[in-house]
């Protein structure tokens, strides 16, 4: 059975990776003369990176509420898929309140870690997994707002790699074991690099590029290498 402690441990690298990003979000908001505390409020209530940066950008150019809502919905559409995927993996007995609570911190990273577990996801585990990333994300913005320059840039820079290091630890071993998984990973990496670097695709937002790469490669994998029962 997956415990709170198991989840908490797996949340450490996520929190480390989040901190400098949300820190710079805090710095960004203050440097644009947004009211003090707004960045922290946004981070604790939104818990998403691209959506927050986009939302603040829109507010700085005095966009309408409708534009903000529509942009956020498009950027966050991928969470719908992740949430659907998680609905298949959580314990059936999980209550509605518990489901509502863990939904709040479904992010690209917590989703990826949780969905690679082989056992049913318990509420304790999900709560543990989300605790440190949630705190790291919110408090990162607070520090960014208050101190602007708490950490030397070199250390902040080095922290940025922690998240990606963890990702590599998650995808490399299963890719060595399964050719199918390796092909899906390579395809999704290639697609995302293509969309990122080829100027032709500059019109696509970052969230849209991400979800396009993920969906196409997973769909191709499912078409070419269908999985039997109990995946």
């Amino acid at each position: 059975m997956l415990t709170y402690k198991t989840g908490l441990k797996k949340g450490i690298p996520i929190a480390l990776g989040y901190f400098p990003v949300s820190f710079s979000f805090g710095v960004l908001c203050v440097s644009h003369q947004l009211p003090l505390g707004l960045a922290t409020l946004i981070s604790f209530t939104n818990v998403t990176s691209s959506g927050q940066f986009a939302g603040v950008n829109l507010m700085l150019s005095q966009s309408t509420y409708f534009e903000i809502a529509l942009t956020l919905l498009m950027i966050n559409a991928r969470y719908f898929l992740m949430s659907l995927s998680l609905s298949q993996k959580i314990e059936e007995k999980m209550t509605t309140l518990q489901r509502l609570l863990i939904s709040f911190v479904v992010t690209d990273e917590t989703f990826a870690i949780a969905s690679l577990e082989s056992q049913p996801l318990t509420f304790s585990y999900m709560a543990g997994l989300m605790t440190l990333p949630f705190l790291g994300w919110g408090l990162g913005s607070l520090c960014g707002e208050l101190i602007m320059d708490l950490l030397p840039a070199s250390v902040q820079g080095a922290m940025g790699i922690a998240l990606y290091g963890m990702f590599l630890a998650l995808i490399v071993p299963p890719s060595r074991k399964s050719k199918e998984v390796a092909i899906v990973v390579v395809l999704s990496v290639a697609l995302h690099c293509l969309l990122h670097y080829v100027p032709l695709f500059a019109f696509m937002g970052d969230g849209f590029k991400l979800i396009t790469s993920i969906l196409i490669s997973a769909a191709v994998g499912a078409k070419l290498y269908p999985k039997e029962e109990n995946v």
Partner: protein
Amino acid sequence: MIYYLIGVLIMAAFSYIPRFLPLTFYRKKIESPYLQSLLYYLPYAALGALTFPGIFHATPHLYESLAGATVAFYFAFRNKSLIFVAVSGMIACYVAYLIMTYIH
């Protein structure tokens, strides 16, 4: 100020809606083998796209990121733990930064 508060409220709502709807209300098992396979590959596809090309721009300098990425990839390939791989990547970045600062 009111504009910003309502703006944040809207942002929060549209971050939460796609997250809680399926997880809270979809209680059936997905039967379609194609959809099951798609959901099986989804996290791997997500992690691949999240890692690249982001890993190259994870730090202020490309050489730092490359050093961190190489070391992290090596230990990931050796099946080391999550934390070990993450921390070794951070140390490699920092060492690369120190070396380059020293050279300049």
